[in-house]
């Protein structure tokens, strides 16, 4: 427990954010449209609410079993001629991945909270690799040298004028501050296009994993993940162990509930990846690396998750689908964005800080920033009781229980 966070600088960070009018404006707009979209999506597919209850039951069973599920998934992946690993700690995960990557490689990366959690991009860059974030929001954050402020919309706090200025600099051609957003998107597409095909390695996360077949479910809209996991010769996936569920049909259910509560009726793409690319078209001889990657590696990260699963009141944090809905309901997030948080944002972030990152100072700062107003719980498809967890954490922190 070496990391000492400082409440004073945390509070200053929060207050600076709270006094930032541009940030507030960006957030107010985002909150309004997110709520409207979720409600529309739920109205159109009303079965989602019952499905969410079913998913909660799946999660309640899967979380205590995640280690076994990881082993089962690894066996399936290896049967599919991929490779599976369990990383006990963030450091172990980084070692495994940098062992696979080596140095001086061109890497295209999809957005991954788990990657953010362990500082994957920074690590690979430090090892002398060229890493491109390919999710547009994450790309903006990377180029700004900032950190993500929302789990699904990392650049939620960056207004378009700032994006235009940034892109002009990065792409070396003028993009007017009042340019159409479509033109900004097109410029990013053009810039990243050849990276996908030149890349040595594609890295992704996953939204759910079916243990029985070792299948990753990856939800996206931009199409960057399809390219990043399809074009390069190697695909490496980093997945938190809590994403594992027993069967394919379970993983489908988790995915549908995730995207619906993430404000989509249906996403443009869901990729299901179970192994490397293969063909048997010439004399029925199975050959790997047809059009897709020849190599497929999946790292399941424990990183404190099995420890967290042992706390009766806190383990529900592992049910989180990362739909991001709670963030839009948090009155503090509405003025501070991800500054209220650590690796994960708002109240639930305190649990990760305390148990997964073992940083009690940071956990206390976040725990006492939570209003315990409970509106996040109203939104959460898994009915995660954040106030209950916060009060439990405060008890552990204030009474010195660990």
């Amino acid at each position, binding site marked *: 427990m070496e990391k000492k966070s400082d*409440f004073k600088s945390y509070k200053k960070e*929060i207050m600076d954010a709270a006094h930032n009018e541009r940030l507030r404006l960006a957030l107010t707009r985002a909150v309004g449209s997110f709520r409207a979209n979720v409600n529309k999506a739920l109205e159109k597919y009303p079965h989602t609410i019952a499905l969410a209850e079913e998913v909660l039951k799946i999660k309640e069973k899967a979380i205590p079993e995640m280690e076994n599920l990881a082993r089962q998934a690894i066996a399936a992946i290896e049967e599919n001629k991929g490779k599976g690993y369990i990383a006990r700690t963030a450091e172990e995960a980084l070692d495994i991945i940098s062992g696979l990557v080596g140095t001086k490689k061109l890497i295209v990366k999809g957005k991954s909270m788990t990657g953010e959690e362990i500082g994957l991009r920074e690590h690979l860059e430090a090892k002398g690799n060229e890493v491109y974030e390919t999710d547009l929001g994450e790309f903006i954050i990377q180029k700004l040298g900032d950190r993500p402020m929302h789990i699904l919309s990392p650049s939620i706090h960056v207004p378009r004028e700032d994006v235009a200025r940034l892109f002009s600099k990065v792409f070396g051609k003028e993009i007017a501050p009042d340019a159409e957003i479509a033109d900004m998107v097109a410029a990013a597409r053009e810039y990243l296009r050849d990276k996908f095909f030149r890349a040595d390695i594609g890295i992704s996360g996953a939204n759910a994993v079916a243990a029985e077949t070792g299948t990753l479910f990856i939800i996206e809209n931009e199409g960057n993940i399809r390219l990043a996991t399809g074009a390069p010769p190697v695909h490496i996936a980093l997945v938190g162990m809590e994403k594992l569920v027993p069967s394919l049909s379970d993983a489908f259910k988790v995915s549908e509930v995730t995207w619906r509560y993430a404000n989509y009726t249906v996403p443009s793409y869901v990729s299901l990846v179970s192994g490397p690319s293969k063909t048997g078209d010439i004399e029925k001889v199975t050959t790997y690396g047809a059009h897709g990657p020849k190599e497929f590696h999946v790292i399941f990260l424990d990183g404190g998750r099995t420890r967290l699963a042992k706390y009766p009141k806190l383990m529900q944090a592992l049910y989180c689908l990362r739909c991001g809905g709670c963030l839009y309901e948090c*009155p503090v997030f509405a003025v501070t964005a991800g500054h209220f948080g650590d690796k994960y944002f708002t109240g639930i972030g305190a649990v990760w800080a305390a148990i997964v990152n073992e940083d009690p100072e940071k956990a206390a700062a976040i725990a006492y920033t939570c209003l315990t*107003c409970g*509106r996040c719980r109203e939104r959460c498809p898994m009915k995660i009781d954040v106030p209950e967890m916060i009060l439990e954490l405060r*008890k*552990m922190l204030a*009474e010195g229980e660990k």
Partner: protein
Amino acid sequence: MSEETAMTSELLPPGLAYLADNILTRQNILGIDKEQGARWARGLDLPDTSGTIFFAGCGYQFSGQLEALMSLIKTMDKTVGAELPMRLAQFQKKLGLNLPAVYGKVFSRGGEAEAKPLVAAVKVLRKLGIEPGYLAANEPCCGAPLYQAGLQTKFAENARRAYQTMKTAGVKQIISIVPYCTHALQKLFPLYVEGYDIEVRHFLEIVAEKLPSLKLRFARRVRAAYHDPCQLVRYLRLIEEPRRILNAIEGIELVETAWTKGAWATCCGGGGGFEAVFPELSGILAVNRAKELMETKPDIIVTHCPGCIMQLKDGLRRLKIEGVEVLDLAEIIAMAIA
């Protein structure tokens, strides 16, 4: 913070430690003399023993003092910066700030008038044929801020003591009004006090139940925006009751925000001791909520929690909105029932 009860953990924000210390030593959040707190009930002649008591709690009794304290620490938070306002006790000495004197001044300018919702609630109960008792200076503190701060062992000890005090006074039923107290007495005490057998009801439940037999009329026609306190709406699920009551009052037109109402109501920014840790941020959140409510173009804002009232008044003040009063639902009912 006194020596004997000093909180051990460095991780407990001092602002919360201050409130907790007062509860443990003086049985109220500000450490004020209990006799003074009970002054609002003078002239009501409430019996000190009765099977059913009215539980007044700290929030309304000391709302004047709390407001004075909060405006003090909000200013300090802005001017002095980061951490000092949280170390109230030490800061008090350093600046020669005399908090008891600040509180006393509020009392001497008729601070008990701030406890109007309590008087109103008792009057309403009497109209409904209920004659509650009141433990006055003997009323224990529910200890909710201890629980919120994370001091659950101390909360449990306090709860057991409070239960004994009330049992000794012959209490069988509590009519509670402050949302935090109600939640503590009704939902938390049974978890920590073995054999807890006191029935706890919220004032609004009782009024809502008797609604069909009441004729309610407000003196003027007003658009009233209702703000749901977090504890009432998401912890006690009193969603329909206040709305049924407001809708039953002739002259009152209930107006609501499009989205942030009922279970989705936005917190006023005063939740769980937040204002004692982040005074300035708490003010910003108060402004945000006041803005949302003002979108309904109300003549008055109605809510039912001493914390929310304080916050919303502060929000309107910061927005420089004049002429929109923040009233407690108990006062509204009392005005309409007369």
